[in-house]
């Protein structure tokens, strides 16, 4: 239990640092912005209660906001994402009790389901964040472009991180 907590804490710190120091400034082709800190929320154990998940999401969003000077935007989006975690997972996973590990990852869900889950969550998050940021449908085409490209880039990065975190002895089942 505590091992997971420590693991999660280290992961959080690493990802947040990476996001605010490096990835916030990357803007591929002027459209794609990678968002990897949401991996924390995605990887939260299923057994964790909704309240705690929301708290984690809120604090995570707030921390990223403080660093990137966008008060409230990430906090709002992360809170909503934390709430949607369970329903989205239920879309793709029918049998929760038979998971080897409580955290959703490629190892525990299988590649397809995990990727689908990852994609959905990232899509939802990117939509939220870009909508809140622009707060208007002024240029819907650009908005859609931003959302799609950022989603793809983030999914790519997060899949990579996920495979890094898979325990070595049980890879590629």
């Amino acid at each position, binding site marked *: 239990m505590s091992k997971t907590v420590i693991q999660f804490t280290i992961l959080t710190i690493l990802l947040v640092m990476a996001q605010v120091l490096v990835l916030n400034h990357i803007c591929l082709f002027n459209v794609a912005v990678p968002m990897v800190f949401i991996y924390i929320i995605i990887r939260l154990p299923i057994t964790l209660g909704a309240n705690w998940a929301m708290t984690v999401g809120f604090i995570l969003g707030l921390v990223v906001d403080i660093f990137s000077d966008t008060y*409230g935007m990430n*906090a709002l989006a992360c809170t909503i994402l934390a709430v949607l975690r369970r329903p989205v997972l239920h879309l793709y996973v029918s049998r929760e009790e038979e998971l080897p590990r409580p955290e959703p990852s490629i190892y525990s869900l299988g590649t397809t389901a995990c990727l689908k889950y990852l994609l959905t969550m990232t899509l939802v998050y990117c939509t939220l964040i870009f909508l809140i940021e622009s707060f208007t449908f002024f240029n819907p085409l650009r908005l859609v472009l931003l959302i799609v490209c950022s989603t793809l880039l983030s999914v790519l990065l997060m899949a990579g991180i996920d495979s890094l975190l898979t325990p070595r002895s049980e890879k590629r089942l």
Partner: protein
Amino acid sequence: MRELLKFFIKYSSWLVFTVYMVVSCVLLFTSNPYQHHLYLTSANAVSASVYSAVSNVTSYFSLRDINEDLQRRNADLELEVYKLKNVIRDYHEKEYADSMVVDSALSRYHFIIAHVINNSINRSHNYITIGKGSLDGIEPEMGVVDQNGVVGIVNVTGPHTARLISLLNPHLRLSCKVKGQDHVGSLAWDGRDPGEAILEELPRHAVFHKGDTIVTSGFSSVFPEGVLVGTVVDAEKEHDDNFFALRVKLFTDFSTLSTVRVIRDKMKDELREVEQDIEVKSTF
């Protein structure tokens, strides 16, 4: 109380969610300028409409004070306008004086500009009142002209106003002649047409034509020689066959008199003294 706690525990996640949403929204709207602007303007529209509805009602309560204040300020402003109009009139008078062409032959004459404050043309005996008086240098028996022609002679003066006998007054007889000749006659108004007068006592051998200009003869110290009076319209035979009477159309438009010039003759005192002496001597 227990039921309330149970309710809270059952729906705790919704509660927590709501709290987090509210906090994030507050942060969002207060710190980010664009969202802040949106929130403020929408809020402003609502509050503005409420305030305007309220003020529509409460503004009626202070109407009486506003009315009194407005009346007082109106009175002050009207007084100021009147003063400014007077100033402008003075400037116009000075401008009028500057725009006059001064003939060197008339240098013994000095003009005082005055405004007409009362006039009449439809009575049998007409008088004109002007806005300058003895304190401005106006004395009785000064001639008055305007830019068109002869107007009258000063009759009575007060300190600030003076009354003229208008040319449209049978009491005034002006010594005139046909321009270019030396034959002198008397111009008087016959009481019929305010634009025409009769030039009488013109000798029968005087030559004149229709359209000839009638000017003052300069024989009196009231008017200098050559001031325009009118043009000949028609000739009338007088009952006395030795003299002609001419109908003269006057240049001066008495119905639109506004600014006149009072002629002050510098040599008037000297002339009067000399003529008086002659009379005294002639009694011997």
